[in-house]
C-alpha cells in the first residue's frame, strides 16, 4: 500500500520558522540570516555593524557555533543583547534553536541578526524565519565558491565580498566572483567591504537601512 505524503522533509522546522516570521512581521522586526564558510568574517562584519549603531537602536544578535561562546563575547561588548547558540555538533542553526534563544532576550529588538554556524552547505536547508539572507565570501577564498555551493548563493539576497583590503596580495578576481554569483542567482545584490579598513561598510549599512 502506497501512502502519498507530499510534504516537505523539514516541515517541522518550516512550521516553527513560519511562526517566527509571523512574530517578526507583527512586531516590525527585520531579521537577517548571515551565512558563510568559517573565517569569512561574519562576526567581524557584525562587530563593525554594532559599533556603528547608535546605542538607542533596538538590535539583538544570536550567534551560532558548534562549541565556545567566543563570538558572543566579541559581540556583547557593544552593549546590545547577544546570545550564543552552541549547537553541540550540529553544523547549522535550526528554527527551534532560534525560538529557544529568543525566549531569553527582551522583546524590544527591531533588528535581529542570526549569525549561522560557519558552513556553506547545511545552513541553506533550514529556514529560520528570516526576512533576508546574506552570504559572506572573502577574497582569500576561491572566486568559484558560488558555483561550488550553488544552493547557498541561490537562496541569498545579498553577497558581501569581504577582506577587499587583501586584494593586492591574493589572486582573487572580483569580477569573476560577481559573475558566478549572478549566474546562480541573477537577482543577488553585492557589496564589497573590508571590515579591517572600513571600506565599503557604508554600502552595507545602506543595504541594511533600506530594509528596515
Amino acid at each position: 500500500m502506497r501512502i502519498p505524503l507530499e510534504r516537505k522533509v523539514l516541515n517541522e522546522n518550516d512550521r516553527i520558522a513560519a511562526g517566527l516570521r509571523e512574530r517578526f512581521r507583527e512586531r516590525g522586526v527585520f531579521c537577517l540570516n548571515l551565512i558563510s564558510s568559517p573565517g569569512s568574517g561574519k562576526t567581524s562584519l557584525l562587530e563593525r555593524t554594532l559599533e556603528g549603531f547608535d546605542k538607542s537602536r533596538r538590535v539583538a544578535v544570536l550567534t551560532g557555533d558548534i562549541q565556545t561562546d567566543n563570538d558572543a563575547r566579541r559581540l556583547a561588548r557593544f552593549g546590545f543583547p547577544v546570545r550564543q547558540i552552541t549547537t553541540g555538533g550540529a553544523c547549522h542553526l535550526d528554527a527551534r534553536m532560534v525560538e529557544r534563544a529568543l525566549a531569553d532576550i527582551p522583546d524590544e529588538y527591531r533588528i535581529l541578526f542570526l549569525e549561522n554556524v560557519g558552513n556553506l552547505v547545511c545552513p541553506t536547508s533550514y529556514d529560520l524565519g528570516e526576512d533576508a539572507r546574506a552570504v559572506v565570501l572573502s577574497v582569500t577564498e576561491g572566486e568559484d565558491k558560488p558555483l561550488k555551493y550553488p544552493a547557498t548563493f541561490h537562496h541569498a539576497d545579498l553577497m558581501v565580498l569581504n577582506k577587499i583590503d587583501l586584494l593586492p596580495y591574493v589572486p582573487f578576481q572580483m569580477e569573476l566572483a560577481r559573475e558566478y554569483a549572478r549566474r546562480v542567482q541573477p537577482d543577488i545584490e553585492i557589496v564589497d567591504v573590508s571590515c579591517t579598513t572600513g571600506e565599503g561598510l557604508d554600502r552595507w549599512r545602506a543595504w541594511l537601512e533600506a530594509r528596515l
Partner: protein
Amino acid sequence: MSIAASVLDAVRAETALRPGARAVRAGLRIGELSGVEPDSLRFCLEALVSGSDLEPLAFDIELRPWKRRCLVCRAEFRVLEFNPACAVCGSSSTEAAGGDEMEFAYLEMEEP
C-alpha cells in the same frame, strides 16, 4: 544527518498511525539546489536504519533538476552549465522554477 533523522521521524510518525503495518519504502524528492547531496543523504539514511526498528526500510530518491522560467517566452527550462538565460529564446529575464525540493513523496507500507 539531521535531515536523514527528520525523514525517519516522519516514517515513524506515519507508521504509528497504522498499528501492525510496516514501512518498506520511502520516496523522497531532492532538488539540485536543495543543499542536500543525494548520495550523502542515502548514506546517512541507511546508516540510521541499519540495526534499528525500521530495518529493512528502503529509499527511493528522485533527483529534481534546477529549473528556471522565461519571463519573455514563458518556457520552463533546465539550467545547464550555470547558465540562467532562457534555453529557448536566450532572454536573460528568467525566474526560479524549481530545484530546491526536499520533499517526502510517499511511504509504502505492508500490512499484516
